[in-house]
């Protein structure tokens, strides 16, 4: 209860225009004896609760030649334990009106359920059960592998955009695991075996390599007690040591192309994009915050400078956007993309955008524009509270890639403290960075 009062007071403070010192989600955290980190974000807006279990393993950890293993294994986590046979997992959750899913990225694998808050013990027991109790059956593994191959077809191979995205990523991170597809190449998927899945499970799935995040209408003490009674009984795996730092990015070390052009008869609308490896919060903290502000200035919807110039004013693009995601264990990337308007040639638009960005980086962005973008970002932190799953997602992702809670909670202050000079330095540096890759996807002539 005192937590709620605290939250209300701080939110009241946040309602005044000078919003420098608020936190974001007010998480509470503890670590069980077996090494599992438990984080609770209280949210009284609805009677529901979301549980997310994050494992600090992802596609970047796939062994050489076994790309797609982390993601394939994620599918296998639903295939049954001694206590809960195949299929029972989803049945149990559905019987409570709940939903569940999972996802894999380069850095982590996450499993999540939404249930009424009073059904939390059930899903905690179920996640604890499969943390080390999975039965990996050969026949089920081979059927699931064909599901994954079908997923690859559906998401990548059957769409020029999917194939283009893979090639582009490979060129952007030519000598880094981030350049490999999370789902795995066709060749790698053909090599995967049930034995690979068993070895992977032994190596990575244990309490000390996981984070439990609960968001919802719950008390921290209750969740902690339940966690001790469920996850607390899962034996640690002493063979798992701290995760080794991910390798640094070395641009173009195997002579990757800096240009990916693809023509396909199924494409109806051309697009152009460019990306460059850029620091993440983990590789350069202050620079990363400046890049977040920069991305908001250039790409923040219709008031983003890139959209404003090329779509609203010059009318030579139909859309134009900028993106930057600061959350990664290793390098991140800074990107822009645009769709030309009907009367504009794609390469002419590319040239103009590149010139405009170079020019803008050299003249710099004024302090008032920086201040407006910072305010929008800080306001976004308030809107972020008006969700149940998203806070668990943001907190879990941050922890899984090694960003501590206090850093996450100081996000509004960090954004507030970014100066125009820092934004402009980040802008200049990112424009002259090594390793820009340009891509064009267009209709076949």
């Amino acid at each position: 209860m005192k937590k709620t009062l605290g939250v209300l007071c701080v939110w009241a403070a946040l309602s005044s225009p000078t919003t420098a010192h608020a936190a974001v989600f007010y998480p509470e955290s503890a670590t069980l004896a077996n090494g599992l980190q438990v984080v609770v974000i209280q949210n009284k807006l609805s009677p529901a609760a979301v549980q997310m279990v994050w494992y600090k393993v992802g596609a970047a950890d796939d062994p050489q030649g076994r790309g797609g293993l982390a993601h394939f294994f994620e599918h296998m986590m639903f295939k049954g334990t001694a206590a809960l046979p195949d299929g029972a997992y989803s049945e149990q959750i559905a019987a409570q009106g709940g939903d569940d899913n999972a996802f894999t990225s380069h850095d982590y694998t996450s499993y999540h359920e939404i249930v009424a808050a009073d059904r939390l013990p059930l899903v905690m027991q179920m996640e604890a059960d499969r943390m080390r109790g999975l039965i990996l059956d050969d026949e089920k593994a081979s059927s699931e592998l064909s599901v994954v191959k079908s997923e690859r077809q559906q998401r990548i191979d059957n769409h020029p955009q999917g194939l283009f995205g893979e090639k582009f990523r490979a060129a952007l991170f030519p000598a880094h695991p981030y350049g490999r597809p999370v789902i795995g190449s066709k060749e790698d998927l053909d090599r995967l075996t049930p034995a690979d899945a068993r070895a992977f499970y032994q190596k990575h799935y244990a309490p000390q390599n996981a984070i439990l995040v609960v968001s919802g209408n719950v008390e921290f003490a209750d969740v902690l007690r339940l966690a001790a009674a469920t996850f607390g009984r899962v034996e640690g795996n002493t063979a798992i040591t701290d995760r080794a730092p991910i390798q640094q990015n070395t641009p173009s070390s195997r002579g990757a192309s800096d240009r990916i052009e693809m023509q396909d008869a199924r494409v109806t609308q051309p697009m152009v994009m460019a990306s460059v490896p850029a620091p993440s919060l983990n590789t350069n903290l202050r620079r990363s915050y400046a890049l977040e502000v920069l991305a908001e200035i250039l790409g923040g919807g219709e008031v983003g400078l890139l959209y404003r110039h090329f779509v609203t004013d010059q009318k030579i693009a139909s859309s134009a956007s900028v993106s930057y995601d600061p959350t990664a264990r290793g390098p991140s990337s800074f990107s822009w993309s645009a769709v030309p308007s009907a009367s504009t040639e794609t390469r002419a638009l590319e040239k103009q955008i590149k010139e405009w960005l170079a020019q803008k980086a050299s003249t710099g962005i004024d302090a008032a524009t920086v201040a407006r973008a910072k305010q929008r970002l800080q306001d976004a932190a308030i809107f972020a509270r008006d969700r149940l799953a998203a806070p668990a997602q943001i907190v879990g992702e941050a922890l899984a890639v090694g960003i501590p809670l206090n850093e996450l909670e100081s996000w509004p202050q960090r954004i507030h403290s970014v100066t125009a000079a820092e934004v402009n330095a980040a802008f200049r540096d990112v424009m002259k960075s090594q390793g820009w890759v340009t891509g064009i996807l267009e209709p076949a002539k």
Partner: protein
Amino acid sequence: MNMNSLFVRHREARSAVAIHLSLRHPKNGLPRSLRSFAMTGLIVSLFLLPLPTNAANPVITEVTSASGVKAWLVQDSKLPLIALRFAFRGGVETDPADKQGLAVLTTTMMMQGAGAYDDSAFQERLAASSIAMEISAGRDYVAGEVKTLSRKKEEAFHLLALVLTQPRFDQTVLDRVRGQQQTAVTAQLAKPAWQARYALYTHLFGAHPYGYRSLGTVASLNKITREDMVSFTQSRFARDTLFVSVVGDITPDELRTRLDQLFGALPEKAKTQDIAPVTLPEKPMSVLTKREGTQTNIIFAAPTLMRRDPDWYAAEIANYILGGGGFIARLMKAVRAREGLTYGIATGLAPTEKTSLLMGGFDVDNGKAAEALALVKRVWQDFYAKGVSEDEVQAAKDYLIGSAPLSLTSTDAIADALLSMQTQELGIDYLDRRDALYRTVTREDVSRVITQYFAPSALSFSFVGKPDGVTTDKVQDLVKE
């Protein structure tokens, strides 16, 4: 930490680089590609879901302004936010046949300048106060939403009132936005899911407005003038076809005043036009649209009962058991879990004002299309011929009753729910009643609905791809413009 990319709206930065997450399965229920049919600008699927008794339902108050504008309000000041939703009857279905795309173009243009603010000035004002505002056209409704921090509400309501009463529709802006929508039309043609849907709707609806292309075509957009948009807003936006819902940090008294500020100046009555009833074809058919690639996108549909039919809840249960229930559903169990033939298969009910469809779809490798299709038909025939067990009915009820409160997790979600309850005439006490509406359905009710509405012979199919060993009534090329 990427709170901006997660929460700042209208960020279009979904670049190819962003394809880095892989999900275990596509979201439950109606496949995303099919939702646009049911999309009336409102979230229909929410109402598949009633509340359990252990959860306190949001308390809904009906508020009426001095000029007679009604709104449903859930007052909640836990967060300093206000979410407002509204809808006017009459959406894409009211587009003239030769000016398809009018409703979408008009609503897009409404966000591009109002009163003294031109397009840039208007967007700058919204951004400066972190106000999220959007107006969109669905099949049966034009819907709008605004979400604001409490401390910026004055500005938010001021801007929305301008949008509703003084949209500018500047000609130079129109030329730009028309071009953007034409680009979107062209991009749409590359999507197999759109091609599949368009082929299916063309068969089902023929020349009826439900078969119209909501974005229009490049040619139809060229015919639309500023006058068309002015007359659209003047004839359509009126108090008698308006529905409003509000959730968040606002009192009933203040809302009364705000309702008049926003909607009080609108005409009392809309100049509505009658939309002909939908007559679905008696005979189902199948169509193949040829597309190069490795997989075939398959969707199917059959006529089903209307939302207001007393058997609606039995139909929801039947649908859940057959294809709506994710990994619990018979189709997913057979086609994905047992045979590994697809990443996901689902069915769902898509109700609209004038008709209702049972729809579904999946993607499959070209070489396995015939095998998968035969399996789907076998599972479906078995469901139709032998019906369902008591256990299955109970499992479906458990889910449909238990999941309801789990969807009301944000002010926006609750506001959407309140709006759908109004447009679907479910009553202000629906949240308290719907538990019983599902609970009282018997296995016999479900069997009756299956016999009446789930005959596999009633399904029409639309394929996009190059499926091996599949023959269809009709074969056509991709729609090219």
